């Protein structure tokens, strides 16, 4: 099971908490997913007292009994991401932060330059940074140099469900950083895509929309849990190498000679 900054998590499935049809469905989806980490965010709070949305949501996620990973979603500048991370640390009582510095409005592609700068600033302040990044090898090297001990490359742009867009890039990262926990974050739409990430040797997958926007989120959560477990087991089982030419699986020797 994945170990992030010295903490072992009981599942390789990490799940977002946004976009569910209701809090009840969210809780049921988490229960059936077996997820060990929930991503959360901070947003403006206008109301006050126990009826305020934020206070209710906090009680809900704490009842899930999983590790919380606050994000800096929607931040486009280093300053904004750092301030958001600082607010999240105080609110959720954790130094874990999923660092998002968005560089492109349409694709929500991470800004690699801002990401490295923000990662360095936050690491210096004692944060355990989980950078949402692209699969760019040099960017990932810089993030590790900045103090990150986890890398979270995208499979595809957030919310697209397109799966693993750059298999070579993801495989290459795994090969280059055999000891670094790697998480495919974003872009997964189907359990088979999550299984594929685990078969590559990734330590975990992080997804939200694929479960929350399914017709039956709780059932889809369970489907992802099964796929992640299957993919992880397959990786440990050392898959056969692919080859271009056919090779009979049934022995040729001893076949009856019939014409």
């Amino acid at each position, binding site marked *: 099971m994945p170990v992030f900054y010295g903490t072992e998590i009981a599942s390789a499935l990490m799940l977002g908490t946004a976009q569910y049809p209701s809090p009840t469905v969210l809780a049921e989806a988490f229960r059936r997913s077996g997820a060990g980490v929930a991503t*959360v965010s901070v*947003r*403006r*709070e206008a109301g*006050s007292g126990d009826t305020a949305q*934020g206070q209710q949501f906090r009680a809900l*996620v704490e009842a899930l009994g999983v590790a919380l990973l606050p994000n800096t979603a929607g931040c486009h500048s280093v300053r904004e991401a750092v*301030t958001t991370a600082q607010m999240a640390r105080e609110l959720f009582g954790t130094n874990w932060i999923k660092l998002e510095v968005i560089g492109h409005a349409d694709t929500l592609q991470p800004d690699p330059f801002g990401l490295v700068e923000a990662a360095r600033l936050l690491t210096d302040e004692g944060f355990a940074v989980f950078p949402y990044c692209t699969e760019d090898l040099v960017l990932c090297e810089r993030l590790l140099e900045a103090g990150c001990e986890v890398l979270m490359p995208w499979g595809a742009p957030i919310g697209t469900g397109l799966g693993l867009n750059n298999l070579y890039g993801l495989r290459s990262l795994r090969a280059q950083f055999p000891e670094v926990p790697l998480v495919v974050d974003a872009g997964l739409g189907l359990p088979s895509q999550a299984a594929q990430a685990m078969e590559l040797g990734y330590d975990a997958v992080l997804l939200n929309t694929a479960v929350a926007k399914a017709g039956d989120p709780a059932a889809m959560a369970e489907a992802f849990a099964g796929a992640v477990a299957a993919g992880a087991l397959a990786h440990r089982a050392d898959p056969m190498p692919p080859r271009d030419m056919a090779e009979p699986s049934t022995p040729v020797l001893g076949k009856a000679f019939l014409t």
Partner: protein
Amino acid sequence: MTITLNGEPRETAARTLAELLDETGQAGAKVATAVNEGFVPAARRAETVLSPGDRVEIVAPRQGG
């Protein structure tokens, strides 16, 4: 004086960030704060003096991916 609270103009008599949270009824709530894009820890709210035009953000836990 007029400040900007969560992006909206607000007339306030609060002299400090702590007084502003009293005014909005969020003194006891689990919220985090920033003034002019800089984080202000809960322990420093009482000593954080507000000036006209300050941009104050009050945030709370929310769903995220």
